[in-house]
Structure formats: structure tokens, C-alpha cells
């Protein structure tokens, strides 16, 4: 697909090419100035990202060179004894993100399908507006809401039932913990995933849907046989982008997860994640190795979220290109 043609678009990449227009000297100077400034500004993003990678890698040098992979397999965190195992935060991130996705995926796909296919116009608008508002509420507000509103409800009603009827979420009953943190995280990323999903759903051509409906398909059959297959890669991409959010989220989780760096028996009891471990520990890291371990965690998080983003973006763009808006 070619973008709308602009006269000056033919040889964009050749530096110093003269653009059409009047050729007066002051104009040429201003043109060169603007082009140069725009190019310089564009490269700032590249420089910032490079600086980010270098700073984190250098900060983590002690761990990357000296300790090797030991810290990543060790689950004992005790700065006083020079023990810096980070297995727990890594597992905590994995578990909380997985639980959050388990909550967010059905919610967000349901909402997106409801908005684009099932809802009457007024309700569709209301729901779409609510999703946008939810997506722009700062994560710290989600965290406070979770701590003061959701936590107590879960702690006194849901968790007792879960721990007596299932194998999960054992341990001391508390408002805090993996369950409540993941629930808030899931509710927080659901609007984001459903906004991406809704954009994709809106791109499915009306004619295709009408054709299916004309063959006698019900709404759900149209969605199942035509709409979802049309955008399946993009939908997976939207979920992956949501995963990227969940993995790196700090403030919505930090209130609820409990943050003991050396948690007790259960993986589902109060725990921590990479992000909350960094937030809690960095300012108090005095020794070189302590700081280095936290920098290594941040580097892991950066590499992980970049990879997740690249994958999710590629999938979403693949579908978006197939069906331009």
C-alpha cells in the first residue's frame, strides 16, 4: 500500500537533495535547518535507547561477569549475608503476569466483541468510553483501589474458600498476596488489550460480515467463523502487548503483593516481582553487588519487554496491514 503521494517523497533518503519550491537563498537555508533539526531530533530516541541499554549493562557488569547465572537460580535474598538470589522475583513476575492474563484475556476479548458486534449503539459508546477512561487511570490509583477496596474483600471471602477447596493460594490469609495483586493487574491491562482488539475488530470489512449473515449465520457464527479468523494474529498480538504491560507494572502491584524478598512456603502467598523488588530495594542498595543485581534485574525486564513488544507489534501490524482502516 502506498501512502498518499507527496511531491517530495520520491528521493527522501538522499541527503541534501533540493526540495521543490522557490530556490531563494534564505529559503534553502531554512529548509536545510529544519531538515537537520528534524533528523537530529529523530536520532535522539535512538541515542536514549542506546544509553539506556549501556547504563543498565554497565550497572549489571559485576553480576554479568563475576557471579554468572548463580543469582538467577538462587532463591535466597539476604543482603546482610551477601545472598542475592533473584529467583523469587522472577517467578513472581511470571506467575502474576500469567494470572493477570488469565483474567484479562476473556474480559478484554468479551468487551471488544460486545462493543463492535453485540451492543446497541448507545451502550457500545458507553462501554467504549468507559474502557478509554479505565485505560487512562494512573496505575497507582489501581494499586490503592486494590489495597483498600479489593484486598479486604478477597482476604475475608474469596481466599478462604480457594485455600480450602483448591490446591492454590495456600498459606496465611491476608489482604495482600499474589491473588489480589494479579487480579488488580488483570483488571488494569484488560482495557488496554480491549482497545487494541477493538481497533482490529473495527477493521474487519462490513461486506465480509454481511456476506456471512446473508448466508444465515447468527451474530456469534459471524464472529466465530469470519471476524475472529480474520484478525487472529492481531488478537494474539494484542494479548502479547498486554503481557508486556503486566510484566513491567510496578505501582498497581506494589501495594498488594506484600514484597517480602525472601517469601515463605507458598508461591501464591505474599511475594514480589522484578519491578517491585527494584522499587523497594534500589534506593537502599549500598554495596556494589547489591546495586549490580538490581541493575541486572532491570536489564532483564528491559530485554523481556522489548522482545514481547516487538513480537506483539509485528503481529498487530500484520493484521492491520491486511485490513487497512
Amino acid at each position, binding site marked *: 500500500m502506498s501512502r498518499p503521494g507527496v511531491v517530495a517523497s520520491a528521493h*527522501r*533518503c538522499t541527503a541534501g537533495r533540493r526540495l521543490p519550491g522557490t530556490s531563494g537563498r534564505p529559503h534553502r537555508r531554512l529548509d536545510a535547518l529544519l531538515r537537520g533539526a528534524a533528523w537530529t531530533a529523530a536520532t535522539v*530516541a535512538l541515542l536514549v535507547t542506546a544509553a539506556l541499554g549501556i547504563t543498565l549493562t554497565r550497572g549489571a557488569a559485576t553480576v554479568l561477569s563475576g557471579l554468572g547465572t548463580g543469582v538467577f537460580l538462587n532463591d535466597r535474598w539476604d543482603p546482610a549475608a551477601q545472598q542475592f538470589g533473584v529467583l523469587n522475583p522472577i517467578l513472581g513476575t511470571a506467575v502474576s503476569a500469567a494470572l493477570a492474563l488469565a483474567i484479562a484475556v476473556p474480559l478484554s476479548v468479551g468487551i471488544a466483541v460486545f462493543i463492535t458486534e453485540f451492543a446497541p449503539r448507545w451502550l457500545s459508546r458507553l462501554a467504549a468510553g468507559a474502557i478509554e477512561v479505565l485505560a487512562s487511570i494512573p496505575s497507582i490509583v489501581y494499586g490503592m483501589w486494590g489495597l483498600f477496596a479489593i484486598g479486604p474483600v478477597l482476604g475475608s471471602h474469596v481466599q478462604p474458600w480457594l485455600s480450602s477447596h483448591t490446591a492454590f493460594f495456600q498459606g496465611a490469609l491476608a489482604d495482600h498476596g499474589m491473588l489480589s495483586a494479579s487480579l488488580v493487574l488483570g483488571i488494569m491491562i484488560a482495557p488496554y488489550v480491549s482497545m487494541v482488539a477493538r481497533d482490529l475488530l473495527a477493521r474487519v470489512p462490513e461486506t465480509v460480515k454481511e456476506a456471512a449473515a446473508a448466508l444465515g449465520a447468527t451474530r456469534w457464527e459471524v464472529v466465530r467463523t469470519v471476524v475472529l479468523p480474520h484478525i487472529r494474529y492481531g488478537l494474539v498480538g494484542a494479548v502479547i502487548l498486554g503481557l508486556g504491560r503486566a510484566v513491567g507494572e510496578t505501582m498497581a502491584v506494589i501495594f498488594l503483593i506484600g514484597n517480602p524478598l525472601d517469601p515463605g512456603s507458598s508461591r501464591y502467598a505474599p511475594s514480589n516481582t522484578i519491578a517491585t523488588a527494584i522499587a523497594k530495594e534500589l534506593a537502599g542498595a549500598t554495596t556494589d553487588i547489591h546495586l549490580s543485581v538490581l541493575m541486572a534485574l532491570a536489564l532483564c525486564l528491559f530485554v523481556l*519487554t522489548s522482545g*514481547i513488544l516487538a513480537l506483539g507489534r509485528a503481529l498487530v501490524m500484520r493484521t492491520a496491514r491486511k485490513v487497512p482502516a
Partner: protein
Amino acid sequence: MNLVVIRRKAANAVVAGLAAMAAAIMLACLAWIFHALLARGIDGLDVAFFSRLPQPSETPGGGIADALAGTALLTGMAAAIGVPVGLLAGIHLAEYGRDCAVARSVRFVSDVLNGTPSIVVGVFLYGLLVRPTGRFSGIAGAAALGVIMLPIVTRTTEEMLAMVPGPLREAAFALGAPAWTVTFRVSLRAAFPGIMTGVLLAFARVTGETAALLLTTFDGSRTAIRPTGPTASLAVTTFTHAMSPHHDRQQLAWTAALVLTAAVLLLSIVGRMLRAKVRWPSWR
């Protein structure tokens, strides 16, 4: 009706019900969040809250004037760098370097930066500015916020400029306008409401930003507002007060969260309204 038709209609009804339930759950969460904010926050919303400095624990009548000033200072400094650089970068991506290798990598890297957790940005500036100088500072915080703003402004500017129809530029070139005039007086002017959307959304994002500031400005309550030292901000003050066991502190936290949410929502709603105004005929 035969059995197959009944089954198909039932399946349709069940799915419609489930989808409606998902939407109802989200609407309920939204209502619950607003209720929590209003019920707990509105009591503390008075003049003292905006005008006074925090008081020692258990002393009533404290406010968060320092945090409001700090947030204004930090976002202002971040925007002073992030907005012009983002604008120019967006101009490069949309007008000059559309399909070049540089433009493509800048586009990708901007998306990566946009998806980078703010805590990682915080660690980056902690390692770059806080650790070497040995002190938390407003400058480090503003730089972190600037790094967060930059990709948002860049990508929205590009997106909005790309929506400006090519023939508009061609018409200006045909009239003999030089390229910089076309960029500033045709493309940018036509895309202006949309570009403001990007700027406002970037402001909304950094106003509520907490994790990155926690690692760079630290909690600067009751210190003078100056960029070279720890600086209070609305978001970090909300966090530290919410974690406090004292009831009056928690009250302040809820009121601060209410003000924070109101500010962020105002910014993003105005932003989205501006974007909705951008409508181009399809002249392709």
C-alpha cells in the same frame, strides 16, 4: 423450530450474554474505582489541601502544596525537552524520512521506549544521574519523564501528519512555497489538533507516573522545591502517604489520588476530543 436452529440461537444468546457480562464487569470496576476515590478523597478536598505544606504525623490540617509545585516543575521541565524533540522527530518521520532506515529504526525504537516499563526508565536515570552525583534530584526525575514523553509525542505527531492529505502539500508546492513553509504552515497547521492530542496524552501519562519518580526524585516532602535536590511530586506523595499507617496521611493520599485522577482524566479526555475533530476526506 427444529432443534438445530434452537441450539444455534441459544449459542448466540449465551455468547452475547457473556460479552455483555465482561462489559458489565468493567463498568462495575470503573464505578467502584470512582466510588472509592470520591468516598475517601472528597473529605480532604479543601483550600488547606492545596495551599499548605505537609504537617508532622497526627497533626491535622496538612496539605500537599509542595507536591503540586513539584509535579508542575517536573512535568514542565520534562515537556520543555520532550515536546519539541518529539515534534521535530515526528516531522522527520512523516515529512522527510518516511521510508529510510533511520526513520524505520526510530519508529521501532520509539515503540520499544513506549512499551518500556517506567521502573526501567527510573533505573536508567538512577544509574545515569542519581548514582554518579550521589543525590536524588528533580533533574533526574524530569529527564525520566522526558524519556517517557518523547515516544508518545513522536508517534502521535507522525501519525497525525501522515493523515494530512498529500494533495494539500502538493498544492502548496505548486504555488511555489518552500519546503519549510509547507511543513509549518500547511502540514503542521492542518494536523495541529491531532498533535495537541499527543502532547496532552503525554502530559496525562507523566502526571500519573510514579515508579520512575520513586527512583529519581525520591520522596522530597518538606524540602524546598529545587531541581537539584529531592523533589516532591503528586504521584510519589500519594504513594508514600497511602503506605503510611496514620489515618490522616491516608486521607491525604486519597485526596491526592482524586486530584491526580481528575487531572489525568481531564488531560486525556480533552486530548481524545481534539483527536476526534481530525477528519480528512479520502482523496486517494
